[in-house]
């Protein structure tokens, strides 16, 4: 598994905390593995809850039309990069 950057670690902790993923440690989320479907098995309700947590923590609004949202939610790495870019 590739190492998580500090920012990715922070986002991973947010994911585990807001979605109650008790079976998974934040440090176990591989940066390039899929978060939804096959990977962590998250679904659309998780996407909404996660989006809300991201808005509250980083003041970033996720929108379906200004980026390919499937890609943004594709992995911890892409999600973290999106947050960093939008929050800048």
């Amino acid at each position, binding site marked *: 598994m590739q190492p998580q950057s500090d920012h990715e670690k922070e986002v991973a902790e947010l994911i585990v905390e807001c979605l109650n993923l008790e079976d998974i440690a934040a440090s176990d989320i591989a940066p390039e593995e899929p978060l939804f479907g096959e990977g962590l098995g998250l*679904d659309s309700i998780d996407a909404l809850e996660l989006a*809300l947590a991201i808005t*509250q923590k980083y003041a970033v*609004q996720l929108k379906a039309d200004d980026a390919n*949202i499937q890609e943004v939610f594709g992995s911890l790495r892409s999600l973290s990069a999106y947050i960093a870019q939008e929050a800048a």
Partner: protein
Amino acid sequence: MTAEYLHPLTTRRAGEMIAHGPAGDVRVDQFLTQAKALSRKLPDHKYVINLAADRYAFLLGFCAAVIAGQCTLMPPNRQRQTLQTLADEYGDCYSFGDAGLDNMECFDSNFPVEGTIDPGVPGIPDDQLCAIAFTSGSTGKSTPNRKYWRTIRVSTQSNIDLLLEDRTGPMHLLATVPPQHMWGFETSVLLPLFCDVAVSYLTPFFPQDIADALASLDQPRALVSSPVHLDALLNANVGDVRIDCIYSATAPMTAELAQKLEDRFAAAVIEIFGCSEAGTFAARHTASESLWRLSKSFALTIGENGALISAAHLPEDVALQDVVELVDKDHFRWLGRHQDMVNIAGKRASLADLNHRLNAIPGVIDGVIFTPDDTSKRLAALVVAPGLEPSDILDELKRGLEPAFLPRPVYVVPMLPRQETGKLARKMVVELFEETRRSRKAEYEGPADDAT
């Protein structure tokens, strides 16, 4: 067929607005011309699986199919397995608006509209089977709910009374639920055919998308959604947006959420009660009312086997999956769901079925899937499976289950607290769950300062 059995496809006037499509506003006469033109081009099959994501395309496809005498199938989801089951069951079918399966004929709604078609309103036989809705759930095989034209037009009239109350004049409606879902179908597809509602073609998901889509609509505005979407919208700091009416269904809404939405958006928040079998049959202003107001078109009776909903426009009486108490003939109180039934993300499942699947996994000696508490959005599982990891169990469950029903968390435990009779008391299960959760948390976080 005599004319008295025919009822108009729409009761709207030609110049009124029916939709806000991707190419701009659509008047009723334009819509009728397009629907009639489309109906002549549809492939010659008995059934159509309407997969259109663009809500206006769905509306057009549905109405064209009705005009052509075809029945629209509304799959509970887009999963391959679901579509394959439908294709096997209803062999003479094609998909509309989006490719369903590789081996299925697909018809796309992008076509040139001929200008020579008169915009007169087609009459539809009352006994024509127009749509089949499927109860969403965990089981591969879902029960079909037949919607005849009579059912559709009478239940829509009932919904107009319940939802619009005494409002008159045009309303611009946005929905976050898909048109294939019964709640989205009744509101965003059927209301525009029978009352002064213009529907947006969009199905926004994230709070900012919902706010932007609303802002693009004229006022007054209505939002059709679910408690999950509405809770996110409330808390996402999307700025000022005016909403006149908010309609919620698919899961119970708390009075607190309803009140906050009313305060935040100055909107009337109306929660509806219904099911795929019967459609919407009751409503309430959740912020101020705890009792449900029954639609005049329906009767509710409580018998030995539970609550029964009946109506002249339904093909058969419907047994409710809920425990309710009749207060007077027009009002009832909701007491809960039947113990075996769970509702997650607007999808229904039987706990017995979920538990059967869990215990069928090789290596699982004993196991139980349950709801940890009344407010939980997720199921949880306790499993006796030496040698298996929670992830192994989840991988097996994923094969045939909707993600919404996957238990979270899954704890592997030495044994379940079964009584001598072999029964599992819910109280004991929840206690073991809480205990396991506490000890796992402590393990994960390490010893706390105040640990004894």
